[in-house]
């Protein structure tokens, strides 16, 4: 099954990566949306998109290295099965990805996992409830 990029969604319903893109000018939105869209439709056994388009940050946390002209943007993401979870996005002005930005992505990933696990632990519905 091909991969699908999805936005991490906070408990309050906000989607920080989508909200970040929405706040950009239309030209920036399109250029960056196209670059993120390259994560869609890959096969599960495909290698990650090559450098300089993506690179490893730490463990399974990776960065999508987007740009619009000379402006650099980063999307930090992780893979969960066939999904790419887009955790955090920011404009990068310094040489290295700041620790604070990595910490935000890690925190969101922990939250993502915890909420997915809660859903998995939910007991099944009563047998026959939805039976045709």
């Amino acid at each position, binding site marked *: 099954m091909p991969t*699908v*990029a*999805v*936005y*991490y*969604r906070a*408990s309050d*319903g906000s*989607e920080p990566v*989508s909200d970040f*893109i*929405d706040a950009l000018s*239309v*030209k920036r*939105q*399109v*250029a960056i*949306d*196209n*670059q*993120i*869209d*390259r*994560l*869609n439709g890959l096969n599960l056994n495909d*290698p990650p*998109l*090559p*450098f*300089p*388009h993506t690179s490893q940050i730490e463990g399974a946390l990776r960065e999508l290295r987007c*740009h*619009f*002209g000379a402006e650099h943007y980063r999307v930090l993401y992780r893979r969960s099965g066939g*999904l790419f*979870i*887009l955790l955090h996005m920011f404009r990068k002005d310094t040489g290295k990805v700041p620790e604070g930005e990595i910490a935000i992505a890690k925190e969101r990933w922990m*939250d*993502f996992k915890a*909420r*997915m696990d*809660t*859903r998995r632990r*939910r007991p099944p519905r009563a047998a026959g409830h939805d039976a045709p």
Partner: protein
Amino acid sequence: MSKKSDLPFRTTHTGGMRRRAARSPAYEAERRRLAPFERIARIVIRRRTELGLTQQEVAERMGTSHSVISRIESGQHATTMATLERLAEALDAHLVVDLSIEEPAEAREPQEARQVGSKAVLA
């Protein structure tokens, strides 16, 4: 209690793109403008990945600078046919240019969106 609203993801990036396109005709116009460059960028990235080459190595094979490859792979800039021919050679491939009377799937959009898009381009 777990409800659908608790899901830590709901919108796909494709859905986000659709939402932005619906909000602004200029978005659709810009997407159409970049579409051919983006298509070429993806073809080049895929082939470069298959060969396990860096952008620098492809540039060296072409006898050009790294920034030429970087610009093509950005999907934001036009490229000449002559450059594409040299690039195909550097990627151990052949450049194929064709005319088709069938519309490619990615170009098919609702008529309304197309009209709005072309108006925005002409404006």
